[in-house]
């Protein structure tokens, strides 16, 4: 097939994985920790402790892969509202959109779940050239660890140096958390975000409970 023919095919290759009515998302989709019933744990469990845990369920996660040209960078910036972070291990946030550097040709974009399809569609309409944008929302979930001992839990679970001198706010690392893969980002001095695989989320939740025991674990709904 020649390039000219390919250009003429206007095909919609993005499919919405969620119901049109965004209100329905929470009645139709279950987060990977649905069975844990974090809302009840938040009421019944400790109200004070060194470590706070919450899940950010059903977020929209998109993996962007490309070697962006100057033109593509401009287009991506206008689509996301924020420029692609080109510096290794950095991230950029604008509103509810966060873009994380994952590798020299890969970025992880997160935004609220009901806006992912819209962003995918706009990429398809506006971004030209060679790139790939894949919705990975269904395979991942997002946790947040905070509190004065959150860093101690991370130290027990990873080999990363989290001292603020080498791990400032907005830094991102892809690493192993308790031997399972995780993308960890610092939100502020005492808050960290973990993007983990859906199939490992229950294991990581159990691990976090165990690792936080000595500090007191507070579940935030």
């Amino acid at each position, binding site marked *: 097939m020649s390039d000219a023919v390919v250009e003429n095919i206007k095909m919609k290759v993005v499919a919405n994985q969620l119901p049109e009515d965004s209100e329905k998302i929470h009645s139709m989709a279950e987060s990977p920790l649905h069975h844990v019933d974090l809302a009840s744990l938040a009421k019944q469990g400790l109200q004070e402790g060194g470590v706070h845990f919450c899940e950010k369920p059903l977020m929209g996660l998109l993996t962007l892969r490309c070697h962006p040209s100057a033109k593509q960078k401009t287009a991506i910036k206008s689509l996301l509202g924020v420029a692609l972070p080109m510096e*290794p*291990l950095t991230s950029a946030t604008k509103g509810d959109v966060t873009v994380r550097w*994952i*590798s*020299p040709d*890969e970025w992880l974009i997160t935004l609220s779940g009901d806006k992912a399809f819209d962003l995918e569609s706009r990429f398809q309409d506006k971004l030209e050239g060679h790139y790939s944008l894949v919705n990975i929302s269904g395979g991942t979930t997002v946790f947040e660890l905070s509190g004065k001992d959150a860093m101690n839990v991370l130290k027990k679970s990873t*080999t*990363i140096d989290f001292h603020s001198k080498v791990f400032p706010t907005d830094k991102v*690392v*892809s*690493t*192993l958390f308790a031997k399972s*893969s995780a993308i960890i980002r610092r939100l502020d001095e005492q808050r960290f975000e973990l993007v983990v695989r859906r199939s490992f989320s229950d294991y990581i939740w159990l691990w976090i409970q165990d690792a936080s025991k000595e500090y007191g674990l507070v579940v935030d709904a």
Partner: protein
Amino acid sequence: MLHIYCPHCAEYREEEEFHAAGQAHIVRPLDPDACTDKEWGEYLFFRKNPRGLHHELWVHSAGCRKFFNMTRDTQTYEIKEIYKIGEKPSVVDSSVPQEIASGAAS
């Protein structure tokens, strides 16, 4: 535990984030059909096992998932240098065959 510098992430990480992917600079024969069985077999299966300097391919499997090269002393485990795919090693041993020493292969 080795402390390994990833040239893509531009920082040191623990060995558990990496996988060794064998000998570096192995060039696929340009015309496999023209290879003798011996040449093809050596390309597929035969690897060096030096005592001393070795050029290895590593992958930052739990991090950026990119490959890079490493010159390592297999006797002392000392990492002599890290260099990206396509670059030439600067630390070379006289016992290393010429096509590697000259960096002809990627």
